[in-house]
């Protein structure tokens, strides 16, 4: 009889007590969206394309993000400026496929593609989850403030002649006999 009371009645009372006690502790949930959660800077959320410190597009359309993407949700086409700078003619991410794994960011040799803490990307229409370059490209440098790919690459572009990149000596004069 005692066992029956202990196993049924007392445990019920204990449960009620525990729940009652929680009335006086601080709530863990927040009133999203009125209250915004703190997102860590390295959170893998919405993908952006960033710009060089001098304001030019960082993406050189090397296609490494696209090939690293496990769900194949990035498509782009290389274009070339008059001065030899490569850029994406179009750059498309199908966010309805994206799994926010961040492989694209890891693969990017120019720090162009970056994941941001923004996760609020829900849409009523699935087609709206397809983002083009205009939607992805931001006006700043994102997480990496100083890096400019063309300053280390050997390719000549407007404003950076041959031999002016990092660790480069001036172009060789082929007709010179001097060492």
């Amino acid at each position, binding site marked *: 009889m005692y066992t029956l009371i202990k196993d049924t009645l007392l445990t019920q009372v204990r449960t009620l007590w525990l729940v009652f006690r929680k009335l006086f502790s601080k709530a863990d949930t927040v009133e999203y969206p009125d209250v915004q959660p703190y997102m860590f800077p390295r959170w893998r959320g919405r993908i952006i394309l960033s710009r060089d410190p001098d304001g030019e597009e960082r993406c050189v359309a090397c296609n490494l993000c696209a090939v690293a993407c496990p769900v194949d949700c990035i498509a782009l086409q290389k274009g070339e400026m008059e001065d030899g700078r490569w850029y994406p003619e179009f750059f498309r991410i199908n966010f309805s496929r994206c799994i926010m794994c961040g492989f694209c960011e890891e693969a990017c040799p120019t720090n162009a593609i970056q994941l941001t803490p923004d996760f609020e990307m829900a849409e009523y229409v699935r087609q709206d989850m397809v983002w083009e370059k205009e939607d992805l490209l931001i006006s700043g440098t994102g997480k990496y403030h100083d890096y400019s790919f063309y300053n280390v690459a050997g*390719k000549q572009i407007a404003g950076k002649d041959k031999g002016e990149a990092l660790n480069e000596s001036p172009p060789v004069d082929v007709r010179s006999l001097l060492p």
Partner: protein
Amino acid sequence: MAKIVVDGVEYEVNPDNNLLQECLSQGLDLPYFCWHPCMGSVGACRQCAVKQYRDEEDKDGILVMACMTAASDGAIISIEDSQAKDMRERVIESLMISHPHDCPVCEEGGECHLQDMTLMSGHNYRRYDKKKVTHRNQYLGPFINHEMNRCITCYRCVRFYDDYAGGTDLAAQAAHHHVYFGRHQDGVLENEFSGNLVEVCPTGVFTDKVFSDHYTRKWDLQSAPSVCTGCAVGCNTTPGERYRSLRRIVNRYNSEVNGYFLCDRGRFGFDYVNSDERLQAASKRVGGGLQAFDEAALSGLLTEFADGEMIGIGSPRASNESNFALRCLVGEQNFYSGLADDEQEATQLVLEMARDQAFHSPSIREIESCDAVVVLGEDVTNTAPRVALALRQAVRNRSLDLAADCNIPAWQDAAVRELAQNERSPLALLSSYASRLDDVASDCVIDSPAALAQQGFAIASELSNQAAAAESDHGDTVKRIAQQLKAAKRPLIIAGTSAGSIALIQAAANIARALHESRGAAIDLCLLVPEVNTLGVSLLANPDNRLGSALSRLAAGEVKKAVVLENDLYRRAPRAAVDSALAKAEQLLVIDQFETATTDQADIVLPSTAFSEHEATYVNYEGRAQLSFQVHRNYRGARPGWRWLMEDADGNVEDLINRCAEEATAFAKLDDLLPAAGDFVASMKIPRQSHRYSGRTAMRSNVNVHEPKQPIDDQSVLAFSMEGIPASKDARLMGAAWSPGWNSNQSISKFQDEVNGELKQGDTGTLLLERSGSGQWYSAPAQAATPAGELQVAPAYQIFGSDELSARSPTIRQRMTDAYVSIAPKDAERLGLKQGDAVSLNGNGSLATACIRTRIKPGTAAVYCGDGQINPHEIGDSVALTKSDVAGERSLSGLIVSDLYEEDY
């Protein structure tokens, strides 16, 4: 066979080769840069270091360069030895000292031999913190990009361009760490094989400019094994497609046909496929204009049209399948090959020789092994360019013989060249104007085609008493050529139909027959035809069905309907004859890729697919049938020619090939080309897309986020997707060559039986023609007199422009030249012509530019017709030239000939 031990494992190898080649043949991974299977070793890069041991007792060993060491019997080497590995890592580290940080913006990235070898050697961190050497780039023309910073000075480019392909305008300049590979100044790379630099260069110094304009990484290209349709050699290619446009063509190895190299027409002459000028929809003529059919009308179109007798005109640029389907539709008696009458006659003669057991049609590989060559009246560089490259190797057989006498192995490239200096196997060029092979020729005879034929007959009569005697103006030369042929181990005679002279082919046959009489063996007789399927369509059509008679039957009103398949009749017959025939035809149906003068006359125009958009077979100059797979789909209204011509719209190309093999004589072996579905794992398809194909779920998502179903290919064993079993082991069906660790085209060695040998599961095509019986001797025709004041005509050709379809490609157009007429300075003076003047031909409205050349026989005029600028059938055997007042915009720019008369005339 020799036995060598590599890292404790014994291998059977060929002692005539070097260790590097044999290690690669055995499937071992050993990094290299400067060595190339076709160009031998020079030991320039020091990358293939291995440890060699004296004997089993020797534990220390010495470091040797595998490419410079013979694979002699009993050699014991180690690739894995730590000292050897360390040396390779240090070597690549030093090669990379000045290599720019360019990979993301380099067209070579992802298929770069330097990337592969760096990874293989284990070098992964740049320790050198001093300055990098930099270089200025050059403009090298519309085909090739130059980015000299990326160079690792392996010297492969100049060894290919100068030594292998005979170019003169690319050189290694300066010294030590300033070494520069380029031209003496900016300008177009003149050699016809410059495109191979893209594949020969192990890194991104020379890249494909056309490809860069719509660049895609190798792994993103959808590709399939294809065959080049630029000329009758039928080189094997791998076209690559992305985002519904054809992006590039690279070489596909075929040990018998093209080996490792393509010509620039084949590599760059493809972008007409993407052209907006292509015909898009099936349409009919209503009033003056064309109006597209609706779907319903289209289905009943053929049944309605095919009621009653009609003439079918095929085409040498259409596949066997399309021509065969047309033949089935109109009946054999009404099917015409579509070749011009004189060309048809010449081609029939070629076919006759191809069935004669006294002769043998050599493949490109076989041409390279010939040691005495006579070229009779054929400008091979411009009509079958890959043959010209093979001839440059053929003349090297003398130096290989000399080297063998001195115990120098053939792969010791620098030593062999040093030893031979200018010693070459004899190559006699009998042509109407200076050719691009003159620099390696032992004899050049420049004369009119008729006179050249006489020389040919004279050579034959020198060789055999049975051959008819002939007059010769070049007695000594003729005797010398005859002697050279007699002394050769493997003589070769080359002629063709392009000079428009039957006598030349007959003379070539006489020479070969004379050699056959004395030797008993089949003699190499290479007869060239101009277009990709000239032989195929000639085998399908009745030899007596001449285009001229088809046109007169139409003009006489005997037949009211005609179907023209991928053929512009205005390029095949005089304008007046075509006009009168087409005017009389009540119903004219034309199938073609582009608008032409013929489609302008058509009542019904149906668009057809380009070479990369259908599966097809073609027959090359040897009679070798080859299968070309579909690479991508046509997203507009075009269909393969055969599909328009068959009642059953769901027809399968494989069924058609099987039917052609059954029904068409000479095509019995055509179905050998088809891969059997049972050969594949679980009968699964072979994907056209690589295993790293990217963007699958995004490339069409701008149109609709719901991905379309992968298209099904019900025509072939390949799939338009990544699904299936990749052909990573089956070389027959391999689009792009790839092997783990080997992303560049050098991975082909993993698919070869031995390096530079046949592919495993090798499929080199099927020789269709069987030889039986022996033909006759020919006698020299009487020389026709040229009317006073006129010049004898020799047709001239250009690699860029003489092929109708590639001439539609924007890239090729940048290198094309306008119609010209080449004359000697003496004739120019007589006619009062200056370099670049407009000239009227026969006063019939045909205009050309005067091109005064030193090396042309006075009294002859070499006429290049441009891309349809002059109708060659309106010019007879001789031509009267008058200076024209028409101030045209035509010029000689783009013309690369060495003998242009420079003096101010």
